[in-house]
């Protein structure tokens, strides 16, 4: 008896895998899908911890907007109470082209949230053309030279946040930073102007600025930008994209030779002022 009788009939699949986990996937620019499971052990812990109040608690998903999370305060959060026996949920989000993750938990007592698990982070696709108009044109040979730099994604399957790196990297190249631009050749005439369609269902405008700091030094050097270590490419070029908040931002680029005997430092201040927002 080998269990292959009828080949595909009557195969049993388990209800679950006794793991505590929540997984988030993108369905389209405005919808995500989360599924979750709570292990027996986690369930017992929760019951012990919350005691009688567990019966009046609500299963809650907290949807965190992680888009601006890098270096800037708390994520925007929306809470959704779901059916106590639900194990998956379609989540509507109003704004496309954002990063989200979802926390699963129990809301009990006076709106206290008992965290159970956090999902992976997903990024919803944008609707309509990108507002980024910077162009960079490369020959495949130049691009291959870039890709072979170790700081390009080296295709380790478990690597987290790979998508973010790809996008950032594209932007870095697109912004024409001198460090990587050395092997590129920007195309001559400017892009033809096309009207920007309204990208969402309502009229909106988001605008922001970031800063690309780039440079080159002797190969093998240790480079840092405002105290943060930056990985330089084998040819000594480096570039890093950083947030540009309102106000003054001192930038200090430091390099130390491979043998640690020589060092140089270049610094300046960038200011962002005069925010206006009107109709």
């Amino acid at each position: 008896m080998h269990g292959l009788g009828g080949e595909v009939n009557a195969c049993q699949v388990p209800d679950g895998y006794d793991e505590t986990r929540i997984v988030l996937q993108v369905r389209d620019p405005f919808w995500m899908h989360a599924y979750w499971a709570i292990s027996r052990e986690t369930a017992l812990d929760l019951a012990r911890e919350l005691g009688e109040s567990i019966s009046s608690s609500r299963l809650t998903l907290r949807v965190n907007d992680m888009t601006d999370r890098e270096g800037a305060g708390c994520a925007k959060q929306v809470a959704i109470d779901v059916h106590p026996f639900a194990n998956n949920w379609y989540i509507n989000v109003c704004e496309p082209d954002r990063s989200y993750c979802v926390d699963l938990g129990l809301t009990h007592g006076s709106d206290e949230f008992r965290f159970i698990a956090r999902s992976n982070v997903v990024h919803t696709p944008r609707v309509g053309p990108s507002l980024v108009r910077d162009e960079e044109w490369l020959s495949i040979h130049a691009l291959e030279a870039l890709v072979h730099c170790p700081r390009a994604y080296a295709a380790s399957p478990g690597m987290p946040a790979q998508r973010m790196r790809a996008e950032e990297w594209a932007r870095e190249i697109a912004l024409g930073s001198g460090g990587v631009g050395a092997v590129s050749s920007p195309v001559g005439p400017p892009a033809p102007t096309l009207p920007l369609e309204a990208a969402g269902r309502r009229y909106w405008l988001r605008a922001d600025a970031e800063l690309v700091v780039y440079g080159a030094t002797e190969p093998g050097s240790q480079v840092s930008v405002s105290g943060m270590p930056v990985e330089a490419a084998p040819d000594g070029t480096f570039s890093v994209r950083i947030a540009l908040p309102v106000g003054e931002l001192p930038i200090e680029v430091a390099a130390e030779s491979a043998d640690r005997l020589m060092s140089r430092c270049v610094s300046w201040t960038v200011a962002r002022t005069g925010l206006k927002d009107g109709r």
Partner: protein
Amino acid sequence: MSEPRGYLAIVLHAHLPYVRHVRGEAYLEEKWFYEALTETYIPLYTMLARLADEGVPYRLTISLSPTLMSMCRDSLLQARFSEFLDGLCRLAELETSRTRWQHAFHETAKMYLERFQHVRSVYHDGLHGDVIGGYARLADEGRIELITTAATHGYLPLMEVCPSAARAQIIAAASYYRNTFGHGPRGMWLPECGYYPGVDAYLREAGVRYFFTDAHGIENASPRPRYGVYAPIYCPSGVAAFGRDMESSKQVWSAHEGYPGDFDYREFYRDIAYDLDWDYIRQFMGDCPARTHTGIKYYRVTGRTEHKEPYVREWAINKAASHAGNFVFNRERQIEHLARVMDMGPIVVAPYDAELFGHWWFEGPEFLEFVIRKIAYDQNTIKLITPGDYLDERARAQVSVPSMSSWGYMGYNEVWLADCNHWIYPHLHTMARRMSELADVYAMPQPDLLRRALNQAARELMLAQSSDWAFIMKAGTCVNYAVERTKAHISRFNRLYSDIRSSGLDHEWVSDLESVDNIFPDIDYTIYSTSPMASAILDT
């Protein structure tokens, strides 16, 4: 001939899920494969080989899925296909007698008989049963560019959460292609055009130079591609992305505006299986207790009515010629227009499911032949090209990251992630995680049985991941089969996993599984490893 002003890349994607049942009752679903060979893959090959013999210049891109190639090369399915063809020829012979006094149908009946006999002789005498070898010859002769798709046509955007699984689908496909043709694929068709930013890194790792997205994958790329879908872009990984042109697509695909719905073309659904006496037809239904398509259909589309008129081959062929003329004319105008506003030769990428040509749209191969001939002899504006050739000729492209997209309904993931099929993902993702866990734990060379069980676990995972199952659950026909197949692979994987972890492998059971789910004999489970060391070894 003067320099063309632009290029047309026709891409045919040929895929079927792996359906092969060693024993038990006959599975209706195996007929998908026999019908596709009879109606599409062999007629298409015949047409392309004839054009090549005549010296008609053309370049075409054909994506052959690893599952389809595996079925074509499987001796059991080859033998069954041979029987299927014999049955079809017998039925067509009976039909020529039966319709002798039915003038309206007799000519069509004779056409089917000649056609099936021709397919049979091409299959046995021309190809010696090796359909893939036939296409490989056309590729060697520089007529077509053969590419492939993910190993079992797994839908990649819904594997983003398990990167090792997405990567394995691509690496395994490239290595199957390499073992089959002796060199790696230049391009890859992403199943259902399903792309998510970052997946291109695995294509690059597999040595693939280009892939395709649906139009909005390129149009919504960032930074905004200057020429939209009419020039490829380079992903930051260095892999090129070509976008689908909606204009040429709609003319062929669309149910209402598209050519295949023309009233003179053959009606697909009016098969003799539903019109003739059960006692007459049942012997050709195999073991199937119900009426199913035979492939012999005597009516034309006629109109949007239940009433159908007899098929007139001559009218249909004339229509295919005039539609081909219209298609080429429109591409010329389109390319003239684009060439005026672009400072480089535009490329129009027109991808289609291969089975559209012949299976769904009976006159599709003739249409394609007319298109190829007209482009070769009747105009100088456009030239047929493959994406690989295009990249060879023009090294420069804009760098941009395509947007997550697919060519499914509404352009994203909702066909494969819906109420009726989302239950599969907790299983598929857990299997993928466990497969990587196994690959990491059993990293060193293993005793034979353990190694075989690990490889079999990889096969079961991949077979469960075929995008076809989720698609069928959503589309609503043959749902039961898709559900049972998915469950079967999940449960086989789970038992392999627990037997491996508890060192309780049953030799006989593993051997049995190997003969039942025998795809990818050379699969190497270590592609699921998450350690960078293993990736490095694979690279070399």
